[in-house]
C-alpha cells in the first residue's frame, strides 16, 4: 500500500516534470526568433531611412547609398516567378482538390509534397542548366524561373486546402443549373475561395523573396539599377549575403539594414496571410452554421 502510493506520487511528479520540460522546450524554440527580430531591429534601424530605400548603392567608404536596385530586382524576379507559377499552380490545385483519389490527383498531391523538399540550391542548378547555359549569361529571367519552381508547390498546396474549404453545395448548385465546369471554377469557386488563394500567393511570395541560394548563379546580382530581364539583377537576400561576407564595416552595417527591409517584408506578408485565413475560416464557419 505504502509502496504503491509512493509509486503513484513518483509517477505524478515525473509526469509534471516532463510536461514542464515540454513547456521549456517551447520557450527555448521561440527564443531565437525573438533574438533575431530584436537584433535585426536594433542593428538595422539606425541605418534605415527613406534614402536607404530610394538610392542606389555607393562604393565602399562613400556615405549614404541604398538598396533601390535590390528592391526593384526582388520585385521583378518575384513578380516574374508569380506570373509563371500562379496560373499553373492554381489550375493544378483544382485537379488536386476535386479529383483527390484518381491516380493523377494522388500523383499531383504527392508530387507537390516531394517538390517542396527539393533544396533551393538544387533548383538553382536546374534553372542554370535550363536557362543560363543555353543563353550563356546570367539574367533576371532565370532568377524569375527558379523562383517560380520554388513557389509552385506552396501555391498548389495552399490553394488546394482553400478550395476544399468551399462548401460542396456551392459547386454542385452551379453545376446543377447548367454552368460548365470552367465557369463554375472561375466565377463561383475561385471567388468563394478568394482570400484563401490570395493567402497562398502571399506565402509563396514571402518564401521566394527570401531565397538567396539559387540567385547566386541565376540573377547573379548587379550593383547598378536594372529593369532588363536579360541582364543580371540584384535581389534583397543576395545583397545581404554580399554585404555580410564583405570585410568592410559600413557594408556590414548595410547588411543589417537590408535584412531589416527583407524581414519586415516577409513578416508583413506572413502576418497578413494568417489574418486573411483567420478571417476567412470565421466567415465560412458562420456560413456553414
Amino acid at each position: 500500500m505504502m509502496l504503491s502510493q509512493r509509486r503513484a506520487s513518483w509517477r505524478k511528479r515525473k509526469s509534471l516534470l516532463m510536461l514542464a520540460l515540454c513547456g521549456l522546450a517551447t520557450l527555448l524554440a521561440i527564443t531565437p526568433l525573438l533574438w533575431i527580430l530584436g537584433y535585426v531591429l536594433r542593428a538595422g534601424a539606425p541605418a534605415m531611412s527613406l534614402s536607404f530605400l530610394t538610392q542606389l548603392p555607393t562604393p565602399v567608404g562613400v556615405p549614404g547609398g541604398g538598396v533601390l536596385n535590390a528592391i526593384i530586382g526582388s520585385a521583378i524576379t518575384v513578380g516574374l516567378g508569380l506570373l509563371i507559377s500562379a496560373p499553373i499552380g492554381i489550375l493544378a490545385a483544382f485537379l488536386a482538390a476535386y479529383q483527390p483519389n484518381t491516380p493523377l490527383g494522388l500523383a499531383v498531391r504527392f508530387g507537390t509534397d516531394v517538390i517542396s523538399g527539393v533544396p533551393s540550391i538544387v533548383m538553382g542548378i536546374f534553372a542554370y542548366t535550363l536557362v543560363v547555359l543555353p543563353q550563356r549569361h546570367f539574367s533576371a529571367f532565370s532568377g524569375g524561373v527558379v523562383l517560380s519552381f520554388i513557389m509552385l508547390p506552396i501555391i498548389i498546396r495552399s490553394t488546394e486546402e482553400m478550395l476544399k474549404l468551399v462548401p460542396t453545395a456551392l459547386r454542385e448548385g452551379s453545376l446543377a443549373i447548367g454552368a460548365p465546369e470552367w465557369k463554375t471554377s472561375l466565377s463561383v469557386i475561385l471567388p468563394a475561395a478568394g482570400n484563401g488563394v490570395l493567402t497562398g500567393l502571399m506565402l509563396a511570395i514571402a518564401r521566394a523573396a527570401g531565397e538567396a541560394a539559387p540567385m547566386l548563379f541565376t540573377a547573379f546580382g548587379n550593383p547598378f539599377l536594372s529593369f532588363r530581364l536579360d541582364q543580371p539583377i540584384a535581389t534583397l537576400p543576395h545583397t545581404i549575403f554580399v554585404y555580410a561576407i564583405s570585410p568592410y564595416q559600413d557594408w556590414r552595417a548595410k547588411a543589417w539594414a537590408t535584412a531589416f527591409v527583407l524581414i519586415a517584408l516577409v513578416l508583413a506578408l506572413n502576418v497578413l496571410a494568417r489574418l486573411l485565413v483567420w478571417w476567412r475560416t470565421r466567415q465560412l464557419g458562420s456560413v456553414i452554421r
Partner: protein
Amino acid sequence: MAQDARIGVPERKSFSSRLTNFWQHGDLLYYSLVLLAALLALSLVAAIGYQLWANSALSRRAFGWGFLISSRWDPALDRVFGALPFISGTLITSVVALLISVPVSLGVAIFLAELAPHWLRQPVSFLVELLAAVPSVIYGLWGLFVFIPAVVRPTGVLLNDWLGFLPIFAGPVFGPSRLAAALILAIMVGPTIAAISRDVFRAIPQSQREASLALGATRWEMISQVLVPYGLSGLLGAVILGLGRALGETMAVTMVIGNNLDLTLSLLHPGYTMASIIANEFTEATYDLYLHALIEIGLILFVITLVLNLLARLLIWRVARQTFQEARV
C-alpha cells in the same frame, strides 16, 4: 401523329452548336489546361533529375563511383574532384543538428497539441511558423555576427575543455565551424519537425487519450506510451523531413561553417557541406569538368533529398490514412 413522325428525324444542329457540344461548352479546353498544369508540375521532378544527370556527364565519366569516396578536391592544379569532404560534412552537421533539434521539437509539438491552453495555441503556433519563415540568409547574418560569438564559441571552448580528448571535440576551437552550422541548422529545422509532429498528434483519435487516462495513466504516460507509439511513423516522417531540410540548407550554413576542406572529425573545426561548396564555387567554375563536378554534387544532394522526402511523405500519409479509416469505422 404529326409529332410522332418527327421523332425519328434527327434534329438539325448548326455547326456552332455542334462545336459547342464537342468541346463541352469550353470544358474540354478547361480540362486540358488543368491536365497540362498538373503534368507540368509533375514533370518538374523528372526534369530536374534529367538536367542534373545530363550536365554532370563529364564528371561521372571521369571519376565514376570513386567520386563519392575520394577526398581530393583540386580544381586548380590536378583537376581532380572527389565529394567525400562535402558528403561527410553534410552528414555530420545534419545529424548533430537533428540530435539537438528532435527532442526540443517534439517537446514543442507536445506542448502545442496536448498541453497548451486553447488561447495560447494559436499565437505560439504562429511564432513557430514565423521561425520557419525567416529567410535563410538572415539566419546566416545573425549566426555569423551574433550567435557565433555569443553562443557557439563559448560552447566550443567548454566542450573542448571537458571532452577535448574525444576526436569530435578536439581543438583548436574556431568560431565558424561545423558546430556553428549544426546549431543554426537545429534552430532552422526545428519548426518543420515541430509543425508536422503537432499535426500528427492532432490526428490521433481522442478515444486513445480517454482510454489511457481512464486506465489510470498520468498525462505523460498517456503521451509517451500511447500517443507516441500510435503516431510513430508520422513522427519519424517529420524527423526525416527535417533531415531533408538540413541536408539542403545553403545560405546560413555557407555563412557560418567556415568553408574549409580539411578532413578532420572535430565539430569545432571549420568544414564544408555539399550545398555550401556549390554556393561558393559554382560561379568560379572556369572549365566544364569543374562545373560538371559541382553539378554532380547537386545531383547527389537531389537524389538523397528525393529519397528522404518520398520516405517521409509515405510515413506521414500512412498515419493520416490510418486515422481517417479508423474514424470512419
